[in-house]
């Protein structure tokens, strides 16, 4: 119990500090590093919830793939050292006010909700998870695969340099 509490506290602190870095710092590269830190914290929280498989997937997909893709996008887009005009104070205050109001409302909802009695963490091993994914939840599994393939092809199409130039209709248009 004590060890669980420590792991929870450390992961939660990591997640929140990383999230603060991810939105608070000026440099976009530091934001991406903070994002990776926050997702490592969330993966730790998943570990305390007994979902090892999900923690590993989160690390691989978010911290591994998405973080690298973001770094690539930053390198392909703006120069990192361009001076930017500072954000006006009313806009920052408005954003903070909105976030605070939403946080208060959600917290009231959480406090008011009646949860069923909690029976403690039920660990789901990766083996059990794999068996479930290929039997009971095979539809979800296949849908994710199709979605990822479509997204990958769409990303290549969108980011290609000569968009619309080499489609099926292109040879007719070309002289």
């Amino acid at each position, binding site marked *: 119990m004590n060890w669980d509490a420590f792991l929870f506290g450390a992961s939660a602190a990591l997640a929140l500090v990383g*999230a603060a870095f991810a939105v608070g710092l000026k440099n976009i590269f530091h934001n991406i590093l903070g994002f990776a830190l*926050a997702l490592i914290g969330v993966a730790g929280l998943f570990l305390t919830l007994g979902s090892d498989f999900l923690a590993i997937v989160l690390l691989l997909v978010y911290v591994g793939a998405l973080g690298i*893709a973001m770094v690539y996008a930053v390198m392909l887009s703006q120069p990192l050292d361009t001076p930017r005009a500072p954000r006006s104070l009313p806009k920052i205050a408005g954003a903070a006010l909105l976030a605070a109001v939403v946080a208060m409302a959600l917290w009231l909802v959480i406090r008011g909700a009646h949860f069923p009695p909690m029976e403690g963490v039920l660990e789901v091993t990766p083996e059990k998870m794999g068996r479930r994914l290929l039997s009971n939840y095979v539809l979800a599994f296949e849908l*994710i695969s199709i979605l*990822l393939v479509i997204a990958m092809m*769409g990303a290549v199409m969108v980011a290609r340099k000569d968009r619309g130039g080499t489609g099926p209709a292109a040879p007719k248009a070309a002289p």
Partner: protein
Amino acid sequence: MIWLHWYLLVALLLFCIGLYGLVQRRSLIGMLIALELMLAAVSLNVVAITSLSGRSSSVGQVVALILIGVAAAEGAIALSLFVAIQREVQSIDVEDLSELKG
């Protein structure tokens, strides 16, 4: 406060930090980062509630897996759009993307 409340509180804070970032940032990549934080908070909520209730907790994990998959697909599409936008407008600052503003 029961144990579940701590998880919900962390997810709530993550979600609201993400919301703040989404509203406040002007760089498209910064907004995408904030959006992904919000999605991670949602999946943390789902996993915490289903896992701590002790019954059929693999349902929550499958839901969280779908969330992660959708977030990855969305991130890939969004990043490629940013690269395309950068090529057209030479900027990924949202305040420069005002072509449709009358």
